[in-house]
């Protein structure tokens, strides 16, 4: 149910984002989604790719520091209140969200959110119990062109 996310350290200067993305593309690895968190000095690029093991190897060989994290993808209704509902469930269950971002593609009336939890296993359990759909890797890959 959990997805493997790659995180990369980048200095915050022009052109820095392009290099790792090209390196992965050159190996024919599809990027399913990406998010960039940054400060004035540096950024953390987070990637979900089709073949994370290969991508990690490629990036590390090219000299990047890559960190592997388990994240959880959740379907939420793409309408006002859809996200709020999911967040309320998590808050009621006292689940800490380290950070979250939206998946780049939507599926019908659903948006997919990627969550980084302190305790992903418990988060999956709570979300499933409350009737939310946790999207696994295979399913995620299946609707990405």
């Amino acid at each position, binding site marked *: 149910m959990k997805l493997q*996310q790659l*995180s990369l*350290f*980048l*200095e915050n200067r022009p052109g820095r984002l392009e290099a790792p993305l090209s390196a992965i593309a050159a190996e024919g690895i599809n990027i399913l989604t990406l998010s960039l*968190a940054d*400060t004035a*000095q*540096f950024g*953390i690029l*987070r990637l979900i790719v089709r073949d994370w093991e290969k991508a990690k190897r490629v990036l590390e060989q090219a*000299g*990047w*520091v*890559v*960190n592997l*994290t388990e994240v959880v993808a959740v379907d939420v209704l793409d309408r006002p209140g859809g996200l709020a509902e999911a967040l309320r469930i998590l808050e009621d269950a006292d689940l800490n969200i*380290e*950070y979250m971002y939206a998946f780049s593609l939507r599926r019908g009336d659903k948006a997919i959110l990627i969550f*980084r939890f302190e305790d992903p296993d418990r988060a999956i359990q709570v979300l499933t119990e409350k009737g939310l759909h946790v999207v696994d890797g295979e399913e995620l890959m299946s609707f990405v062109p």
Partner: protein
Amino acid sequence: MMSVNSTMTNQAHPMWDRAAETMPRAEREALQLERLRAQVERARRVPFYRDILNHRELGPHSIRSLDDVRRLPFTTKDDMRRQHPLGLLAVPRKELARIHGSSGTTGKPTFVGYTANDLQTWSDLCARFLVAGGLRPEHTAQVAFGYGLFTGGFGLHYGIEKVGAAVIPVAAGNTRRQLEIMRDLDPEVLICTPSYALTIADTAREMGLEPRALPIRIGHFGGEPWTEDMRREIEEQLDIQAFNNYGLSEIIGPGVSGECQARTGMHIQEDHFLVECLDPETLEPVPEGEPGELVITALTREAMPMIRYRTRDIARLYRDPCPCGRTTMRMSRVTGRTDDMLIIRGVNVFPSQIEEALLRVEGTTPHYLIEVSRPGTLDEVHVKVEIHPEIFSDRMDRMQALCERISREIQTVAGIRAHVDLVEPRSIERFVGKAKRVLDKRGLTD
């Protein structure tokens, strides 16, 4: 003291201690020789010196001329570190009246002890250069130096009081407040680091004030290296006369030397300090007027009789007569160091201190670089640390906490605020052999 004070008025060149400052050379040399012998005798009370002197069979009897100082051992910063905290004291601990400190090469400061007499001597020495540079009893002086272990604040403070002028002990920082106080109290004299004088001018303009219209007319600046260009800039921007002074905590603090109105070098208070200028490699004296490392023997210090302290400061010495009438030898600005010590906003910082701070945060060494710049008027330090798997997290809060932690450790060990820049792996240049850890982009020498 009244007799001394009276020599300050009705003279073309007021002096704090005319007798000492204009003493004929031969007479002063005789005094130096006598004091040097006494100091060697006093040094025998310090086990560190006693062992070396006994081993070399040296004593006051070995000093027949001033040149014989060269038979005496050197004292280095490392010796001070090994004698930490107060192993170099020549008096019982209870005789101490004050303890100051300066940056050590590692996390621990180097402590310096003073007896009550030492403190009197020190304020007299500060009074000498302050008067030489225009301070008068009727003046008010604003001290924007740090007060604390650092000797700058207290040294100047008591020197100003000794002259009979009024002190405003604002201490370092909070520039807007400095300016408000300056406008309220009209001090004629400003005491701070030269770079801070420019910050005051900048901040005045930000506050809509004309820096040239500020009440200060005289500045006594020290604690960090500066250039003639900087002096011109300070004098132009603030419409003041700027004077340079020199000293170091290991010896006494400010007061070793300072400029007179002629501003052709800093007059060394030779009755209290025997200053040699040596080639740092051969340790032989350099020809007069050539740059060399200053090696200073404190001739009158009671608590810590420093013998031939290697300052690591590079300067030149001049003996030609000065129009002011003082007969003392003069020294140039400090134009460099023989070690890697940096002076950041007046604080002495050794790269080894930064390394020690980084060692406290796992995974931040060995690849780092200390970059010093002066984007405006104040020094800025960026410590670049290469990221690697051990310290990288996908969480921004953790990464920011890491930067803050490194910055806090640097503040603790080195006493300065540094920006921590995390950089990509292998982005810091690799060196074969000794790594280059410091990039100083300030251009502080003429």
